[in-house]
């Protein structure tokens, strides 16, 4: 087990991404943050707080559960229980920044975009992730990345956040090496 990001690394990554988001669009009034449950929503809250502290703007903040939009329902081992989605603002003409903890195959992001489109027509959708671990199966890329980590398919990238897990850390657990 390797630590990819320590607590300090996580803090810095979020601070950097918060700046990057605002730099991209001089006028942040059209930006809204939407975190993908679970943990992406926690990260989105932190970005929201950082941007508020830095710029003094209170960006609209939403949370999205993509379970109802997944394409792999029959392959999951257990019945996926859906959490609520809260998007209390109009997405029309907004720049939505999707926030997730790990970008992997890209299917979660595809489902998230399908979900957002059912809420209206955003001007643009961008993606911010804490870790990009490669192995994309769809043509999706992140606009803001905390850390790029090369991994093998069988590896497990575990994100721990204080609000959920009691500490900030991102670990890599290597796949079992065949004998």
């Amino acid at each position, binding site marked *: 087990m390797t630590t990819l990001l320590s607590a300090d690394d996580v803090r810095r990554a979020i601070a950097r991404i918060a700046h990057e988001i605002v730099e991209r669009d001089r006028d942040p009034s059209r930006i809204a943050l939407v975190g993908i449950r679970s943990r992406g929503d926690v990260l989105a809250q932190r970005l929201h707080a950082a941007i508020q502290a830095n710029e003094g703007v209170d960006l609209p903040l939403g949370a999205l*559960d993509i*379970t*109802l*939009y997944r394409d792999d*329902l*029959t392959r*999951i*081992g*257990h*019945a*996926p*229980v*859906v*959490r*609520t*989605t809260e*998007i*209390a*603002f*109009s*997405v029309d003409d907004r720049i939505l920044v999707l926030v997730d903890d790990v970008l992997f195959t890209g299917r979660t992001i595809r489902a998230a975009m*399908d*979900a957002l*489109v*059912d*809420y*209206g*027509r955003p001007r643009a959708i961008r993606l911010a992730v804490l870790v990009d671990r490669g192995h994309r199966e769809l043509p999706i890329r992140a606009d803001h990345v905390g850390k790029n980590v090369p991994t093998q398919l069988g590896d497990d990238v575990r994100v721990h956040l204080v609000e959920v897990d009691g500490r900030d850390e991102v670990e890599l657990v290597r796949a079992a090496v065949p004998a």
Partner: protein
Amino acid sequence: MIGQAWTRRHVLATDDWSRAEIEMVLEQTDVMLPVLTDPNRTVRRTPALRGRTVVLFFAEASTRTRVSFELAAKALSADVVNVTTAGSSVEKGESLFDTVRTLEALGGEILVMRHAASGAAQFVADRVTSAVINAGDGWHAHPTQGLLDAFTLRSQLGDLAGKRIVILGDVLHSRVARSDIHTLVPLGARITLSGPPTLVPVAWRCGQLPEGVVYEPDADRALAGADAVIALRLQRERQESGLLPSLREYARAWGLSEERVALMRQGAPVLHPGPMNEGIEIAASVAHGSRSLIERQVTNGVAVRMAVLWLLASSPVTA
């Protein structure tokens, strides 16, 4: 509850459900409701059941429940096949056994059915490969109604523990009453049944009541201080079959009038599974009055049915 797996293959009746299972459906209903009602959504659907087929087999006339299930299935992007009585072979006297073969051949993943015979849903579930949702079998059960009534009451009253809910009317012939008992009591509510003695099962009148349920023949006494009332539809044939002297007497003694509603707790809501006989079991002004949650029951009904369809379709037991 989040994180627990759904394990039931069919939804036939809630009499043997644990509290956890009931809560699971109610939680998922909370998630489904915004899909239907969130003003920020422009598309009131999700693709969750895309590519799946839901067959609606309604051998007993019903518009509201069938439409409700149809809306629920479509909100999940499922394909819907309607097999209804009008002109169907069931109406022409085809036996349920033969109908089962047709239904099996249609091959839908989920079969929603309503039939006049108690036990019909069990009969079909034992003989088809689809998952079966009982939308009403004779006098026996209407599980999604019980769940939507529980959802509606909980949304309005909060925690149902200790709340006293009156079920008023023809209990003997009511699958709604039975299903309401089976969802509300596990959530902590106490039920008072009220209605003419001829329209309540003998066993329940004479003390062999299910747990958490009492019987009070006098409607005024039953409603005094109650937290909510569910009024049941009275079918006209009850008077014809000698169980009631007249509909007028029924309306006087057990009808849910303004005066009776005022006996309940301040703000106690009024529910009715529909369709209503205004002027008989419920006064028109009560049905459309400020305490009535009847319209909310309709919206909640679609959301509850979406939750049930989702749990059955996405569970590995069905897949």
